[in-house]
């Protein structure tokens, strides 16, 4: 095969997954090409101009700790930072930021262009060149053939993308961008199990036509919490977002026009997410609610566009305008871009290995929405993992993977390859059984050593991290050793502030387990430090460690006891139907899931303990007989 160009790694797609993959592979020394249909739209946010949120913010910080780029890019382009769940425990707090959409794109492109070994190429990939069970290269629409040793497919919603607005549909990967049809066929021909998902997006409004007074402002945090562990401070000027509501009249109008909705007329085949549903879904499913919440999110300092969050829709464009004008404050508003729904192909992620490489073709990796996830952060972390592993593959190094108890990224990849997806997969904290251990603020302590070992964390970052790790360890030691007794003058004030008796004698780490403890209360007991802001944040981390440590240990013991057989391997050729005593339904579930360990089997939905016991006995007896 003659190639026009050759690289080590080719990344297809310049979205959030593609950018992470390309950046990581390049920085790991791979000669990398990022191929995108339109290079001006690298890093484009298709939908909500925001990064982070509950659980998603955790993902971004984990990406940053491993050496990924999303965190740095949003820190430089975010215009409204808020830490969510401030009133709750640190384990469920998560950062979120609205972004200046065009600034984010430009900053992402700038970051990639400054990355050595990384080459941008514009064009559409129409075929994957496979030979002897391995990937050899890609073929472009303009007839070029690019050779490589590994490919990361990060095509987002572009595969056989079909946009629906009212009764009209047209082929597109995103509004105004062509769909990737031939590549979708290529994947089908290669035998991958393909499904169909859908997602939607709301209209964008002209900010000049909005009556802002009618809305409740939602201000940014006074002290923004950054995503990247390397960010010293957030410099950009911040903005407010605004909260509004729909009305009953609006709901009724939607109900009267449901036949115009492609979702309800049955035109859309793909399955959408149950969270973040279209406004049509909300009105139908929750008919008794007389108003639904909406958010007005300005898209940047230098544009009039405003994103109407919570109003995802595929109703006809003219109807959208009528509906939007029923919202108090939007009576005079104009729509710059109408909302729409998009259907697209995805590949069943159970055909992937834990390193996101396909089981059937060597060197071929899939990352992002193509695997059935939704969300920029979910895509980005897969891109990072795939990018790292494409380099590991080329260098014949051991592949990199994270466990469920180590990171949300571990939970995500494990869920995908074990269970597949029934609907677009979004991360939630409740998906992580070790939620208490996976905090956003300790992502660096959990993962930065891996990033360093891989080669993605530079010297100055590593030095900063080590300093922080040592400081926190010292603080923890002080908390453990500092004891207060009733006679201490500070005791009374502390006890009063926490509104409880602390016992005759108590260590500070014990105090940390009380509800309502803040770093400010404890700071007085620690030696003064030059960097007060940094030391407060270190103290917060140390206190959170103390707060949760007992619970984490207890939970780990429980899970270990209940799940002690998780590591038991299931032979890949095992005939589940041959196990006596399993009902047909259980056999079907097992065959569909094809678990490779008992731990996987245990998590198959609908599998009864009796069936699991039967499986366990069968496996135990097989090992005995062997």
């Amino acid at each position, binding site marked *: 095969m003659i190639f026009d160009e050759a690289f080590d790694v080719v990344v297809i797609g310049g979205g959030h997954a593609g950018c992470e993959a390309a950046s990581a592979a390049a920085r790991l020394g791979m000669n990398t090409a990022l191929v995108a249909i339109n290079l001006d739209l690298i890093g484009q946010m298709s939908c909500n101009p925001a990064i982070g*949120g*509950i*659980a998603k913010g955790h993902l971004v910080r984990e990406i940053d700790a491993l050496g990924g780029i999303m965190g740095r890019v949003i820190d430089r382009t975010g215009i409204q930072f808020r830490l*969510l*769940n401030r009133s*709750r*425990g640190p*384990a*469920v707090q998560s950062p979120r930021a609205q972004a200046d959409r065009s600034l984010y794109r430009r900053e992402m492109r700038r970051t990639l262009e400054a990355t050595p070994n990384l080459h941008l190429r514009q064009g559409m990939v129409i075929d994957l060149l496979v030979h002897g069970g391995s990937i050899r290269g890609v073929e472009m629409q303009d007839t070029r053939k690019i050779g490589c040793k590994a490919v990361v497919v990060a095509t987002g919603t572009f595969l056989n993308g079909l946009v629906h607005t009212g009764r009209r549909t047209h082929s597109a990967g995103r509004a105004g961008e062509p769909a990737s049809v031939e590549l979708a066929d290529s994947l089908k021909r290669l035998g991958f199990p393909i499904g169909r998902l859908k997602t939607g997006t709301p209209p964008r409004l002209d900010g000049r036509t909005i009556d802002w007074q009618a809305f409740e402002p939602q201000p940014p945090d006074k002290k923004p919490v950054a995503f990247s562990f390397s960010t010293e401070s957030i410099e950009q000027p911040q903005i407010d977002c605004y909260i509004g509501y729909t009305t009953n009249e609006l709901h009724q109008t939607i109900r009267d026009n449901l036949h115009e909705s492609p979702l309800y007329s049955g035109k859309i085949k793909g399955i959408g997410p*149950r*969270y*973040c*549903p279209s406004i049509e879904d*909300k009105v139908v*499913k*929750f008919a008794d*609610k007389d108003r*639904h*919440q909406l*958010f007005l999110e300005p898209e940047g300092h230098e544009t009039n566009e405003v994103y109407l*969050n*919570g109003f995802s829709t595929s109703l006809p464009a003219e109807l959208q305008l009528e509906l939007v004008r029923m919202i108090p404050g939007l009576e005079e508003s104009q729509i710059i871009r109408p909302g729409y729904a998009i259907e697209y192909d995805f590949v069943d992620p159970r055909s992937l290995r834990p390193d996101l490489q396909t089981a059937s073709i060597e060197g071929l990796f899939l990352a992002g929405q193509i695997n059935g996830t939704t969300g920029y952060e979910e895509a980005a972390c897969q891109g990072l993992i795939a990018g790292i592993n494409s380099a590991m593959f080329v260098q014949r190094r051991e592949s990199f993977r994270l466990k469920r108890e180590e990171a949300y990224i571990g939970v995500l990849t494990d869920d995908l390859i074990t*269970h597949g997806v029934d609907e677009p997969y979004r991360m*939630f*904290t*409740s*998906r992580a*059984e070790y*939620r*208490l251990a996976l905090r956003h603020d300790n992502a660096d302590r959990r993962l930065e050593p891996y990033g360093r070992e891989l080669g993605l964390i530079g010297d100055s970052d590593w030095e900063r991290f080590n300093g922080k790790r040592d400081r926190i360890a010292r603080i923890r030691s002080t908390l453990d050793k500092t004891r207060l007794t009733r006679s201490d003058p500070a005791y009374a004030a502390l006890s009063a502030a926490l509104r*409880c008796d602390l016992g005759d004698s108590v260590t500070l780490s014990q105090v940390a387990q*009380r*509800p*309502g403890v803040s770093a400010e209360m404890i700071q007085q007991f620690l030696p003064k430090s030059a960097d007060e802001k940094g030391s407060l944040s270190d103290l917060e981390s140390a206190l959170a460690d103390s707060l949760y440590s007992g*619970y984490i240990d*207890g*939970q780990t013991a*429980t*899970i270990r006891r*209940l799940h002690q057989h998780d590591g038991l391997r299931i032979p890949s050729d095992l005939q589940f139907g041959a*196990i*006596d*005593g399993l009902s047909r339904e259980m056999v079907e579930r097992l065959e569909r899931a094809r678990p490779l360990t008992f731990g996987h089997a*245990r*998590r198959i*939905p609908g*599998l*009864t*303990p*009796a*069936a699991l*016991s*039967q499986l*366990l*006995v*069968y496996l135990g*007896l097989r090992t005995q*007989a062997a």
Partner: protein
Amino acid sequence: MDTIVALATPSGRSAIGLVRLSGSNSLAITRLLIADQTFQPRPANVVRRNIRNLSNGQAIDQPLLTYYEAPNSFTGEDVVEISCHGSPLILRAVIDSVLSVGARLAGPGEFTLRALNHGKMNLSQAEAIRDLINAQTDAAAQQAVRQLNGELSNRLHPIKEALLNLIVLLESAVEFVEDDLPLIQRKHIEEKVEHLIAQVDRLASTFESGHFLRDGLRVAIVGPPNAGKSTIFNRLLMFDRAIVTDIAGTTRDTLSETLNIGGVPVVLTDTAGLREDSANLAESIGLERTKQAMADADLLLVVLDGSVPLTATEWEILRLSSDYRRVVAVNKLDLPQFRNELADSNNDRGRVIEVSAKSEDGLGRLREALVEPFHSFDTSDAGLLITDARHYDLLCRTRTELESACSLLNQGASEELVLNGLHNGLRFLGAITGETTAQDVLSQIFATFCIGK
């Protein structure tokens, strides 16, 4: 798979001893034992044959043989049961001979394991079927059958659902903080958790009675010599004799028998012993025996001689046993000088029954008194009992987790800590009934709340 052999009846002298073989060589081995290669028994039929000691050719015994052909046997394999006279020497010789021609000694529970592997039962059924096999009584059998029919799961299901709903409420508060959701009323949730704790507790507490149905109620007969312990023992035995099985923990110098009293399997132990010592030592021996019996027994049957005034020994025995579950039988009602000195005493812990072992007067009431706490299980609408220690343990752990969640709610702790306890509780319940996955929780959230950003 190997052919295994084991003694199926308890060791020690007894009228009958059963040696059981399971595996593809069972019949072949049997043919060697009886020196008849043409032996082709009808399955599930009893025949009598001579068996020989294969090491020296001598006749050992004339046992009854029963052959079960796979898969219609307990284990699902070929099974041969050899019913010999219960002499340990005979049984030893039989087993040695079997071992010498290619079988091996079964490991603990191995017959059951094979039954599982051949699909003769699944594990939770095994828990129930084992109980059924071991059940001495109808009531015990009924409980086993209920579990077989999934009644435990049914009973736990509403508890699980309620717990799941609480989890859903709290998770939605945590996960969807930006959505327009109703405010969580913590006090309300706390009450609900307390309600769940009560339900779990109620179910767990049935284990106290429930496990007696499965493991047997250990009743020890204590009292001074000549009060008539042995006579009462024998009388009760004649009334209520049941199949004898191997009961762990019985000591050598006591007599134990298993009875069925009103549906409850009772392991009755006579502490009289095989030797009676002379009068001066009798008292101390009586006290010693009593103390030991108290340690091992679930219920004490204190037998007093009603024909003579209570001795210091008897008062001592009564005092020692006053904190225990006990029934007092004042014996020798048939004699004219009988007097029940305890008739007026305010004894709320024990029950006092006047009996005559000789004439059998009052024995019926004595039987009832022994099993009175479990008496309701005679009737068919007896409630579900937890009979299995594993289930009991899981329920207790569930309760502990719920209690910790409740206490955290009370202290005002953040939701993720409360959820930690609730999720742990759900895990423990799931080990009995089936796991709840994160997906189940999410599905419930989306079905309940409009999540929309």
